[in-house]
């Protein structure tokens, strides 16, 4: 059941909440579906399940080398594999706030709220920079 809306919650806060709710639900759905396909063997994993214990105790750099996976957006090469399919759900959950901020930016634009427009725009840039892989991948 949805939480009752408080009379003092601003319209932009309520819109943000609606987008956050929808985005989160979609992300979770994708995550759970991908994980089910992974563990039930519907999608073949890149790293076989019974070999996982050899990999999960390694530092991430050694794991990437051992599993022949590139960092950054390199996981997309294996996105049809059961294990890497799960990262689509992870990426969606990590992106929900970006979508919400883009929606919020349009509302703030209509209100000519310059300070919060600048804050929202900067936040989108920070999140896009993190998502871009520019800071993450070197392989």
């Amino acid at each position, binding site marked *: 059941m949805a939480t009752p809306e408080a009379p003092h919650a601003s319209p932009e*806060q309520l819109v943000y909440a609606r987008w956050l709710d929808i985005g989160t639900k979609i992300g979770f759905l994708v995550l759970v579906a991908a994980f089910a396909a*992974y563990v039930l063997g519907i999608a073949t994993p890149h790293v076989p399940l019974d070999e996982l214990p050899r990999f999960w105790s390694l530092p991430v750099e050694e*794991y990437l080398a051992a599993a022949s996976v590139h960092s950054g957006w390199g996981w997309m090469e294996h996105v049809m594999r059961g294990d890497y399919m799960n990262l689509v759900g992870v990426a969606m959950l*990590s992106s929900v706030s970006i979508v919400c901020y883009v929606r919020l930016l349009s509302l703030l634009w209509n209100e000519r709220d310059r*300070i919060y427009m600048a804050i929202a725009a900067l936040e989108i840039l920070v999140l896009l920079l993190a998502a871009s892989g520019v800071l993450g991948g070197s392989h």
Partner: protein
Amino acid sequence: MLRERSLWFAGFAAAALLAEPALAADVDGASLSTLQWWVWPLLLFVVTFLLGIVAVIAGLGGGVLFVPIVGGFFPFHLDFVRGAGLMIALAGALSAGPGLLRAGMASLRLAMPLALVGSASSIVGALVGLALPVHIVQTGLGLTILFIVALMWTAKKSEFPDVPRADALSTALRIHGIYFDAGTRQETAWQVHRTREGLVLFAGIGVMAGLFGLGAGWANVPVLNLLMGAPLKVSVATSSFMLSIVDSSAAWVYLNKGAVLPMITVPSVIGIMLGARVGVRVLTRVPAAAIRKIIITLLLLAGTRALLKGLGIWN
């Protein structure tokens, strides 16, 4: 009394199970031959389910319990545990965020400037954490967890802090509000002060969140409540919502670095979310004080383990 004793017993049984040397041992060839691959994810699911229950009752995010406990007692490398810890904190914040915003408990205007500073600095923390040698991160994690234990033991909370005058920055940013407390059926107007100091501290909190994958509710709430003067319920709700933004940027760094392993992350996220649902249901029926003591004991054990592991004393 009997229920309280049962809870203590359950807490210590969980601690003893986690401290069992066979489970704590690194997975080498010998132990691999005796354990099926699915044992660890299954055990992880059970442990995170229990952590989800107690985290809600103790008013903590799951990440702060998950990283030291799983990092200390499971065979997974700390890189993947921190990646999973961030996803747990993010998932919890994303789930709670819409309800908190709709109810007017979380404040978007209070969260946005602080989350901007926090999310930018959490990228720095994540990059530094993934570049540092693991024993240094373990040692830092141990010290941080022990600091959190001290904070939980001693920190005061103020339901309605006295803010005689809003500062210039919070006035310019129009950070104020009114929230309706469904429990007392009363409306409360609030404003904040010391915004500049709050922004500086949130930069540090963001670095810690990214560095250790802990989430950061344990630090957010005291800064919002005790330093900036937001009412306790607004602080807790805004902190919880803010994690959905701050942890997103650090989660992207971990994902792009390859430190999100689905077999560790997904069972943990599902376990802690299901546990949290059970925790909410039993929230009013269990002695929160006893649960809090169990949590402090578990964190003390896990923090000591992380510290000693980092120092090479207890591997």
